[in-house]
């Protein structure tokens, strides 16, 4: 038993903090918030120099083969800095799904290029009628003898506008059980029949798109893994993504908590710093409780993905996704209240954190979805 971060993990974390402080300032985040592309090639190439995209890709495919917990060290910091750009979508939604579902040749085609920063990608999962249920897949992929024809609408696809590939989740057999008849397709967003449009969302530090598919042919070579069997591997990948978004959330929550505490020490009202009043002090203390306890669950959940048996790993991912994203939302809201009017103006960064918090909370299965999923995993 050894429940502490290694020296190497602590170093990853420190290095990421130092890097992002320099390369991803609040001004830069604000600029990217208003920019349609949403990142710069300069930032992307610097991330690639740091080998961040390669961290969790297996060594045989040009990656570093590190554990999810190692990547969590980086994601806490990218969350803290609200780092914009397609890093999360590419290495988590894209790479993890290919690792979980792809065959050797697909892995050889895509993973080395993701690891060296050459390509970016994403996952088209949600549909207009899915609601909070990522397993509600109705988009149709019809077999035409040589391959499949995709028709339908996907929404809330992160960074599709800058992606080189999209993994599209579609139904190849009718039904409403995701376990049966769901297939993953690798598609090029520049293909005929695909229309990508930016969606206006609260959190514009991460761009979300709508993607229309109109009679888009996909060859059988571009079926990711096995036809009709896409949901199982997708779920395994999604668990890792859920832990990753939890890490990002805790990084953001940590920033917000520090912002509240720093302000409570210097803002004087009625002759003393507002942090001396228990109404404020206890709110800040609760933020600390929420953030630190969330982090404890997060580290276990990350470790569990690489080490625990499948059910325990799945429960841990759902628990972390629920608890950590709710913490981020609660702490952001609490910070705004501590900041008072200062926290309500556009110039103060806290609104970006609130927006990211809400986006993370409803993404990838909301808390209600994951609570229900935990009971199902417990066979209840």
């Amino acid at each position: 038993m050894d429940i502490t971060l290694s020296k190497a993990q602590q170093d990853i974390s420190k290095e990421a903090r130092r890097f992002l402080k320099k390369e991803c300032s609040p001004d830069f985040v604000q600029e990217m918030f208003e920019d349609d592309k949403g990142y710069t090639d300069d930032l992307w190439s610097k991330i690639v120099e740091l080998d961040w995209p390669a961290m969790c890709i297996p060594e045989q495919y040009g990656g570093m083969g590190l554990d999810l917990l190692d990547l969590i060290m980086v994601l806490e910091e990218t969350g803290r800095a609200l780092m914009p750009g397609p890093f999360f979508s590419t290495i988590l939604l894209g790479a993890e799904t290919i690792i979980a579902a792809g065959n050797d040749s697909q892995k050889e085609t895509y993973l080395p290029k993701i690891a060296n920063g050459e390509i970016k990608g994403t996952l088209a999962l949600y549909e207009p009628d899915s609601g909070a249920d990522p397993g509600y897949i109705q988009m149709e992929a019809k077999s035409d003898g040589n391959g499949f024809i995709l028709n339908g609408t996907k929404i809330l696809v992160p960074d599709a506008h800058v992606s080189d590939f999209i993994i599209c989740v579609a139904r190849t057999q009718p039904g409403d059980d995701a376990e049966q008849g769901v297939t993953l397709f690798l598609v090029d967003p520049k293909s005929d029949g695909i229309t990508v449009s930016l969606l206006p969302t609260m959190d514009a530090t991460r761009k979300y798109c709508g993607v229309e598919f109109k009679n888009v042919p996909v060859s059988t070579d571009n079926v990711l893994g096995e036809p009709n069997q896409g949901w199982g591997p997708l779920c395994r990948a999604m668990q890792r993504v859920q832990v990753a978004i939890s890490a990002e959330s805790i990084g953001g929550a940590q920033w917000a908590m520090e912002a509240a505490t720093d302000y409570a020490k210097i803002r004087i009202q009625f002759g003393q710093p507002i942090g001396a009043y228990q109404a404020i002090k206890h709110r800040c203390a609760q933020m600390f409780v929420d953030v630190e306890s969330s982090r404890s669950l997060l580290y276990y959940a990350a470790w569990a993905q690489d080490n625990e048996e499948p059910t325990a790993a799945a429960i841990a991912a759902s628990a972390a996704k629920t608890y950590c994203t709710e913490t981020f939302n609660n702490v952001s809201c609490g910070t705004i209240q501590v900041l008072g009017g200062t926290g309500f103006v556009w110039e103060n960064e806290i609104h970006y954190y609130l927006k990211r918090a809400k986006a993370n909370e409803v993404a990838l299965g909301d808390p209600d979805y994951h609570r229900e999923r935990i009971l199902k995993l417990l066979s209840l």
Partner: protein
Amino acid sequence: MDYRYTPEQEAFRQGFSSWVDKNLPEGFDPTKRRNFNTSEDLLAAYKAFQKRLYEAGYTALHYPKEYGGQGKTMVEEAIVTQTISEKCMELRQIGVITFGMAVPTIYTCGTEEQKQEYLPKIMDGTHLWCQGFSEPEAGSDIANVSTMAIKEGDHYVVNGQKVWTSMAHMADYCILLVRTDPETTKHRGLSYLLLDIKSPGVDVRPMKQMTGESEFTEVFMDNVKVPVENLVGKEGEGWMIAITTLMFERVLGDVTMATAYEKTIKNLISMAQNVKRSGRPVIENPLFRQKLAQHYIEIMVLKYHGLRNFGKTIKGGVPGPEGSIGKLLWSEPNQRITNNAIMMQGPLGQITEGSPWAIDEGAWQYGFLRSKGNTIEAGSSEIQRNIIGERVLGLPKDASRAAIKK
């Protein structure tokens, strides 16, 4: 990072687990909330079980052998306390003050003579200890203790009253916070004594609490003589001793609590499967499913937060005031858990032990009422948040409290 036991630790765990199964008191039923009808029966069972643990080498594993310990590590100690809290919490519960407070205080701050005198007799079950800190005018403001101890020759003469002294009616000794210097500032005038509760002049009166039971007492002391060699540390060090010695054991306490509450969640799930609402099991109700899952998550949080703190401590780090988090992570969820347990039962939720309609022999009704004490005892939630706010986050003290400290 690795949350698993080493093969040696796992073998130790299995060995101890089967030892417990063979050494529980005759007829002991781990599924029952209460196996003993009187506090005398419980005390006798505790002492006998503790003696068996001691003889088998399963007490105070992380303390040195010369004081009745086993010279092993905190991990083995955690395995033992977790196993006990899973299989027979009832037999451990009354020893919480003894092992959580008296032992670490005496071990860390006591003289060699005090360690030789008291520790082995705690380990072998001879003595149970209680905690005499709170007073009628010293609740959350615990440093406001006014029980006086005046030195006269080779002993202190103690006069005053303690309240909320847990288990004093069953205990043999008491860790006692007293004022030895009324002139100096309030924290610096305190000292820490070891009191033989059977001393002349000590009057213990049990208090009946809202559950109908008496865990706590009032202790009145009228010219009680305590030998000077029963002073822990130096005069005036009482406050620092009271605060600092508790940190290590709290770490172990959180890990143990998690095991106890995992069992509570298991019981809650099985209750929800058995209790009906409109003729269907409550577990099918979507609203209660949400609450149940949230409780499940919160106890995971308690567990893995406890383990993370524990991991830091065994690596040699000193647990800091962030240990205050742990108490909030069980006391507040426990109130929500027991409240929702009652609500799952609907109108049956008010039936207590003794009726054929009582669910789980009234365990949840007891738990609901008992949980109201959880956010008050051992430092209220408000005090925990003050500690976190001031000592962890560095927020300033309230002006009125800052003035008193000066």
